């Protein structure tokens, strides 16, 4: 539910990183924070459990400059991925404008990716949003693990599992070393802004 402030000529929109627990959502945000320090005036807010896992959400305000004469400010969130935190995920999804789904390339996580994507679809429905219509980008993360001899899903397998129905843009990424993290973000920003741009004419 982006907010267009006609007085300040400013748009605020909300982007959520979704996906299975341990898939790399927090790592994505940490990399974004590091890379764009100059545009991010505040610290990243992280509400964690003792075990360092996301309990509520991670939050990063992000000033992307001007689009069509409007200042654009994004709020970027992650959700906790563990199944038991479904109520929290729903809260964070409220008013979401764009979604990044971070999938874990590890073969072991195949099922978890699919369950989490289905969960995103179900939770969006609660807000009367259709996963086929909302701006969405998939990120196949942890591609680096293959080089370390850890069994990973091929991109074809990930595409078949997650994207055969959705047909949205995807990136092969390694959030740990920052590979394709910024590209993923830029893509979701451009899709989200395109969906709003009619309003900004």
């Amino acid at each position, binding site marked *: *539910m982006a907010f*267009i402030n*006609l*007085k300040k000529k400013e748009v605020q929109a909300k982007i959520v990183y979704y996906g299975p627990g341990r898939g790399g959502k927090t790592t994505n945000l940490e990399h974004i924070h590091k890379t764009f320090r100059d545009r991010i005036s505040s610290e990243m807010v992280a509400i964690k459990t003792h075990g360092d896992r996301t309990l509520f959400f991670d939050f990063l305000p992000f000033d992307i400059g001007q689009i069509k004469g409007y200042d654009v400010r994004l*709020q970027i969130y992650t959700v906790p991925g563990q199944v038991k935190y479904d109520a929290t995920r729903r*809260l964070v999804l*409220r008013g979401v*404008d764009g979604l990044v789904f971070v999938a874990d390339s590890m073969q072991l996580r195949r099922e978890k990716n699919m369950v989490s994507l289905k969960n995103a679809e179900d939770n969006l429905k609660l807000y009367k949003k259709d996963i086929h219509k909302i701006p969405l980008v998939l990120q196949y993360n942890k591609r680096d693990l293959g080089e370390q001899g850890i069994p990973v899903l091929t991109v074809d397998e990930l595409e078949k599992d997650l994207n055969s129905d959705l047909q949205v843009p995807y990136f092969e990424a390694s959030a740990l070393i920052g590979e394709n993290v910024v590209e993923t973000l830029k893509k979701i920003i451009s899709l989200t802004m395109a969906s709003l741009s009619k*309003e900004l004419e």
Partner: protein
Amino acid sequence: MEYALDQSQLEAIEDIIRQEFIELGVHCTCLIDMAGNIVANLDDGKTSFDVYSLAALAAGNFGAVSAMANMVGEQEFSLLFHKGKTESIHFSKVTDEFLLITIFGKETSLGFLRLKVAEAVKKFEKILGS
């Protein structure tokens, strides 16, 4: 999905915040939406909070408390109050989509603030309509 507020609506909202809160000694007042976007934000010039993070946390917190209300059979807790040693925070719902956050010090009494919030909420609801 998006919504827009124009100059006159936003100025009316800011006037209410200024007159009902800031001029009476409240440190900072924000009107946010439930997605965590900031609609209006004024402070007394002496305090500076990270309002973007504050709005994100407030929207999440309010959602969490609403979910708790449902669990105990309440429709909602329409206002929340957190008291600190020097700063206190008051949250109040404005329609189903907005939240008013007020941060104030010891010099402002809670009773007085609640009165002001109730008045302001009525005015905001007129502007924000539905």
